[in-house]
């Protein structure tokens, strides 16, 4: 009896050791699990095309897509498209976020401004991105400004909505502290209200960057002679599914990259 208990104890000690020793080492690589299903899908994709289930003129093999992107990269053709798209997204986001910050701040602080503007902006936000394209082309021509403005429109709404509610909902508890200690309007905004709304602002910016990528596709598919979206529509005209799929992958890559970047900023700024 006594010996059994002894071995039980030793056994459980051993378990505890492996819990603290081996498992954390494994859990560090846990994120790799997220790659398993995508990798499997790529294999299935390859097999389906190789065995003729999908015709190559409709869906190219994965390697062919990579090869096409690589060739375009080597010839230099790809970089122009990528840089113009990145440039549009960058300026669009910059503009959209700036205007969103102004409107979000004003409506968050002043009930009257909120009552006047919020119903309008709430309904405008529900208009699909593509619906704006013809009007923007008519107003601003097919130049860069139409595209940047369209992207800015997309980036604007999440920033506006999140910041406005973020500022309006700063807890009464903190507002009262500012009041009791006579911080005054300006100081209480600077030291209490705005910092408290920063997390909401960053959530808004993340949403805005996401929508910016949607709106850039809308703009480039219809009215562009350069850019990743143009590359896509060009792939359709040329009957080159490898170019289309390659463009999708490029959007996925840069979309994820920008999201990670904003997330990184978020983690660094909102560290409390």
């Amino acid at each position, binding site marked *: 009896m006594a010996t059994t208990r002894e071995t039980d104890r030793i056994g459980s000690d051993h378990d505890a050791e492996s819990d603290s020793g081996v498992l954390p080492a494994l859990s560090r690589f846990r994120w790799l699990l997220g790659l398993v299903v995508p990798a499997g899908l790529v294999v299935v994709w390859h097999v389906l095309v190789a065995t003729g289930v999908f015709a190559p003129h409709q869906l190219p093999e994965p390697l062919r897509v990579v090869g096409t992107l690589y060739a375009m990269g080597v010839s230099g053709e790809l970089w122009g498209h990528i840089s113009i798209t990145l440039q549009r997204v960058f300026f669009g986001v910059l503009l959209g976020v700036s205007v969103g910050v102004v409107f979000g701040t004003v409506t968050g602080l002043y009930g009257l401004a909120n009552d006047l503007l919020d119903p309008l902006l709430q309904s405008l936000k529900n208009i699909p991105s593509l619906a704006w394209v013809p009007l923007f082309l008519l107003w601003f021509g097919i130049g860069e400004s139409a595209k940047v403005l369209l992207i800015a429109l997309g980036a604007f709404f999440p920033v506006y909505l999140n910041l406005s509610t973020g500022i309006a909902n700063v807890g009464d508890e903190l507002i009262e502290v500012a009041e009791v200690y006579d911080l005054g309007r300006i100081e209480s905004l600077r030291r209490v209200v705005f910092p*408290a709304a920063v997390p909401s602002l960053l959530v808004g910016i993340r949403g805005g960057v996401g929508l910016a990528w949607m709106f850039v596709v809308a703009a480039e598919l219809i009215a562009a002679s350069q850019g990743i979206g143009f590359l896509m529509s060009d792939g359709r005209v040329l009957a080159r599914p490898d170019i289309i799929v390659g463009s999708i992958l490029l959007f996925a890559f840069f979309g994820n990259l920008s999201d990670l970047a904003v997330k990184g900023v978020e983690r660094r700024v909102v560290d409390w």
Partner: protein
Amino acid sequence: MSSTGDHTLAVEGLTKRYGDTVALDGVDLTVEEGEFVAVVGPSGCGKSTLLRVLSGLEEHFEGRAAVDGVDVRDGGSDAVGMVFQEPRLLAWADVRENVAVGLPSGVDRGDAAARDRVDDLIETVGLDGFAGSRPSELSGGMAQRVSLARGLAYRPEVLLLDEPFSALDQLTKYEQQDNLLEVWAEQGTTIALVTHDVEEAAYLADRVVVLGGQPGTVETVVDVDAPRPRDRTDPELLAARDAITDALGL
């Protein structure tokens, strides 16, 4: 000015309604300079409302409430600091910055003297070494001490405390009470503390104002004559506690 001009804190016939509910009904209270007064009463008797009136968070009420003879509606509330029931700290700011929130508006925070004062206060409340910590890194008791230091930074005529220890465990509560007494002795601040804890009120205060009923009215005022530093088992304190519980009708 009027007869209330002589007292650090003077409340006369204070009645406060929220819609049809009467929270306080004809409350009189005076606190002299350097005094420690506790206001005790059951939940819902308007204790917190009293402090909200004094700190200028309630604009509309009947009667008179004045700090150093100045009505709280005419800027008298500028002279009070408040420690709320919850610490209410800025989550993104470190302890030093949180304490500096209490510095009077004329003081430049970047000023060396102001920085020294903030650091001194952090030491006074026993948080040396935590000046650079964020509230999320502090325990409940430590966070409440930051809140106390913030109130002291304001150099108030009266420091109001709204059940500041009610969320703490017994041991931490005792620690915080003793710390508050030390700070009070050191700084000489006039203190008005609201609590539902009879033992706490008797242990801390020179005078205990018992609020009762709904709406809140002053039932009685109990003087606690036990010498300081006090022993928690001092018979005088026990007698005071009995008098308070009697007044509360328990």
